[in-house]
């Protein structure tokens, strides 16, 4: 049985998901998510050690495509969607830190 959801858990999860929450939202989501997780405890409590997890309803395997070129999108169309672009590239504010 999992431990009850705490406010700091919600704060941590929000940060991971790149969402910022006001204090009131933090309270509200902690309560609501807590209720949902409490409901989910009916399955968290089950003894299912011998059961295999299913990620896909049907067991398809080896679905692949040939290594053949297909048309790309035009750069103009692609960059027209961009909130900001420069020099043929997507522009973003400064990046703090290297990719993990």
């Amino acid at each position, binding site marked *: 049985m999992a431990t009850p959801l705490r406010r700091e858990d919600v704060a941590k999860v929000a940060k991971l998901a790149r969402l910022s929450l006001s204090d009131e939202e933090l309270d509200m989501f902690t309560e609501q998510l807590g209720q949902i997780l409490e409901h989910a405890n009916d399955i968290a409590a089950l003894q299912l050690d011998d059961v295999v997890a299913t990620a896909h309803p049907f067991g398809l395997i080896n679905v692949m495509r040939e*290594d053949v070129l297909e048309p790309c999108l035009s750069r103009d169309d692609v960059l027209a969607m961009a909130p900001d672009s420069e020099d043929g*590239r997507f522009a973003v504010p400064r990046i703090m830190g290297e990719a993990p």
Partner: protein
Amino acid sequence: MTLPDGWEMVVGLEVHTELKTTTKMFCGCANVFGAEPNTRVCAVCLGLPGSLPVLNVRAVELAMAIGSAVHSTISPSTFHRKNYFYPDMPKDFQISQYDLPINVGGYVDLPDGSRVSIERAHLEEDTGKSTHLGASGRIHGAERSLVDYNRSGVPLVEIVSGPDIRSSAQARLYASELRGILIATGASDGRMEEGSMRIDANVSVRHANEPFGTRCEIKNLNSLRSLGRAIDFEALRQIDLLNAGGVVRQETRHWDETLGATSTMRTKEEAEDYRYFREPDLVDLAPDLAWQERVRDGLGPMPAERRAALAARLNEPTSTQLDALQVVVDLGFDVLVAAALDADVDAGLVLARAANELAADAENIHSLTTDAFITTLLMEQNGELSATQAKTVLLELLAHGGDPRAIANAKGFEQLSADSLGDVVAALIQANPDEWSRFREGDEKLAQFFIGQVMKVTKGQANGKAVIAELNSRR
């Protein structure tokens, strides 16, 4: 480099190699280096809403080829999502293999007789590329960054070695051997300078026979030289820290080539929670035995075997020649070199020209016929061309093809006749009496002095061997 008394380094490498497919891993965009930014992108590799990945069969085949070449077991595998936010990753997750990789286990034998084990070699997709704008052009202090997604979704195989490496020299040897293997499988062009092969190193130190110490992962190793320097720096840093009574923190460190130092990028506490889970848009991969066999049968001999075959044709090869052999084999010049040896070209000469002039312009090797290569080397060997002239002819052959004799003629590369060489040497002996008498007394080093002088006077048109013969005849 030797570590302080009693200390030993423990190193494992993660080598990422881009696969030489025609298209990307999950879409039909071209997998090419150096195209105009964002011209090789589509809904899938830009992560547009609603797009779905479909696995490239050739990427799987090349991953299997790599696995076969490093003696892995090809296994049923799955794809996972590695979730983290980063602007060069269009979906903000990377599709990668996690607990069930396509290649499990294996090893690479190194030329020094050691063996490095392979833990796994799995498939994953590459990210886009960011350029940082601002004074420094580096990530720190940049005002803003620009992102190009041409590289996004390029197939990669990550080859993870066991913690079996004990010196920076061995790490370099392993990386270099693995690079040769990757090239031999046709999976990769092994170009570290273009980023098609990238290395992370896990480094820890310990007193011999004690349990492993805490490791740090070093990122951004873009050449064999950086790899060696970074490992040595990091091992010494950890030893100094421990000797001073400190502890090594598990962290990711960044190698700065200019400073020659590693620095903290991220501590273990700051590490992302990647929330790995099965990629629901892809199905399981389970290559059948027949397919595995076809891939294995399609592999040619690996570099070690090919080096041995060529080395067997050399008489007591020097270490320079052995190094040259490695280059020759990695670049796939085996047939060319063997043909030149068959034509009785001096082995030292063949290896030197192949590992230097040909290697420098390896991309154009197709312009050079075996006949033209052999003819050029024989002209040099027979004294018809000086070394400088022979090199010029080879470079011209690589650039434009053609007939070596015609090129030599067109460039006015007529070897000095014996008579005129004799005149030049006689004049130099007269002008340099001291050197000449020391040479006569047996100071062989002065031969080089006279060759240099002759070359100067003849603008490189003389053959070094002919000069020595001329000098000796007058001794």
